[in-house]
Structures are given as C-alpha cells and as structure tokens.
C-alpha cells in the first residue's frame, strides 16, 4: 500500500541526488502534444512509456512535459526532444513501441532516430 509517508523517503532520496549532481544545465526535456488531437491519437500511453523508460533506466536529468496542438494534427502523437545545446528534434506518429528506441538511442546515446522524425516523412 502506498501512503503519503513514502513521499518523505522519495524527497530524501532526490535531495541527496541533487546534492551529488553538479549544476544541472544538461537536462533533457521530452515534450508530448496533449491537445485533443494528440490525446485521441494516443499521446497518453506514449508519455506513460517515456515515464516508465526513464524510471527503469534511472535517468535523473530527463523530464517529460506537455504542449498543446502545434497544428500538425495528422502527425500526432508528436514528441519533441529538447537536449541542452542541441537543436529540437520532432518525432511524429510516436507509439509506445517506438519510445524504447528513442530513449536508448537518442536520449541515452545522443543519436537521433532519423526514421521516426518529421524530416524523414516530409521528404
């Protein structure tokens, strides 16, 4: 059973981590489109897959976030990756199955998964 008391332990754990970590300018932000078009196309399970991957791999400087409709409804679910010092990468028609590859190749190893990007489709 989860209880509010667990939160104190989580707080303690992250507090120690934050103190160990040097300045966190190198955060990576994973932004999922959460307007009606995105939600209807499956944005929530995509975000869930990112949360689970981040947890499994213990990635402490990677965060999920959301945005609205970017006007590309037919390409939803859309995921944008903002890594420090790099250009934004836009992945389209993302599914939970694609998430593992995006995390292992791009988020962890810095290698963009070109075949899933908007550039690959618009060519």
């Amino acid at each position: 059973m989860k209880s509010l008391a667990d939160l104190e332990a989580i707080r303690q754990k992250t507090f120690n981590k934050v103190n160990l970590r040097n300045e966190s300018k190198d955060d990576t932000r994973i932004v999922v489109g959460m307007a009606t078009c995105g939600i209807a196309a499956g944005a929530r399970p995509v975000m869930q897959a990112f949360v689970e991957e981040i947890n499994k791999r213990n990635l402490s400087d990677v965060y999920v976030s959301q945005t609205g409709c970017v006007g590309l409804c037919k390409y939803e679910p859309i995921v944008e990756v903002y890594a420090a010092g790099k250009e934004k990468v836009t992945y389209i028609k993302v599914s939970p199955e694609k998430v593992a590859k995006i995390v292992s190749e791009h988020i962890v190893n810095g290698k963009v998964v070109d075949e899933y990007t908007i550039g690959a489709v618009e060519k």
Partner: protein
Amino acid sequence: MKELSLNILDIAENSIAANASLVSICVTQDSHENLLSIVIADDGKGMDADFLKMVTDPFSTTRKTRKVGMGISLLKLIAEQSNGNLEIISEVGKGTTVKATFQYDHIDRPPLGSVEQTISVLVSCNLNVDFIYEHIFNDKRFKFDTREIKKILKETPMNNPDVILWVQEYIKEGIANITS
C-alpha cells in the same frame, strides 16, 4: 476516445489553457441511481455567456493552430450516446465547471480507464497548477490533493520520476480500495 479518463485529460487541458491555478476533478459512481458523473471545475479565465452558448459546437474554438475545437463537443456526444448529458457553467474571471453524466450500465458508455495516468500527466506537466482528484463510489470516497503532497515533497518537483509512479500507484490503489 476509448476511455473516459482520456476525455477527462482533454477537458482538464482546457482548464490549463485557461490559466487555472486549481483544477478539481470528481468522478462519482452511483450504482443505486445507475449513474456515472464527471465534474471538472477550474478557477481559470472563464467564458462569457455568448461564447458559452456556442462552445458545444465543434467550430467554436479560440485556438490558433486550427479552426475547429473538438474536446467539448466530443464529450457531449459521448454523454448523450450514453443517455446522459453535458452541462457547462462558466463566469468570466471566475472559472468554469464542466459536468458530464452517463447512464452507468449503458452499452455505449466507454470505460473510465486509467484515471491514474490522466492525473499523473496533469500533475507532472503542470508544476504550477494544483489538482484535486476525488472519486466517490456510493458512500465511499477517495481524495487526492497535490497541495498536500507538495507540502511534504518541498523542493522535490512533481515531475520527479519516482513521484510520478507513486502518484499513479496511490490513485490506482485508492480507487480500487473503495470500488472493490
């Protein structure tokens, strides 16, 4: 949408877009009345009476990226197909309350689905907004309030991966406890 919890997420996103600072979501299952109701209330910027009249029409939107708004008209359609209805009360500068009702055992009523994932998306992606989730099952009640949680977490943010999974588990267990 396959789950009502996805509609809840979608309607709550309207509250975020309206700059709400507190969003309260309440799901009530009443088996004596054979009723399911979903209420989403915010303290955002609200709508005036004229706009509110149009809002269940898919062509009314204030969004700029496309011409049609779908969220509210979609939920209205689902509610009506399940022998229920959709009602919106709104006041400029005060906030908005959206209430959808459904015949609980109607064959066309979608399942509620994963409320815990919906709430976790909302709380982890909108750090400056507070959320209340209440689930009422006949005379039993479960309540989740981020203001309480943030008091304990202090500087640890709600988008911390451990916190996100805790939120999901906590809500899932909380609902299971009162409904089983």
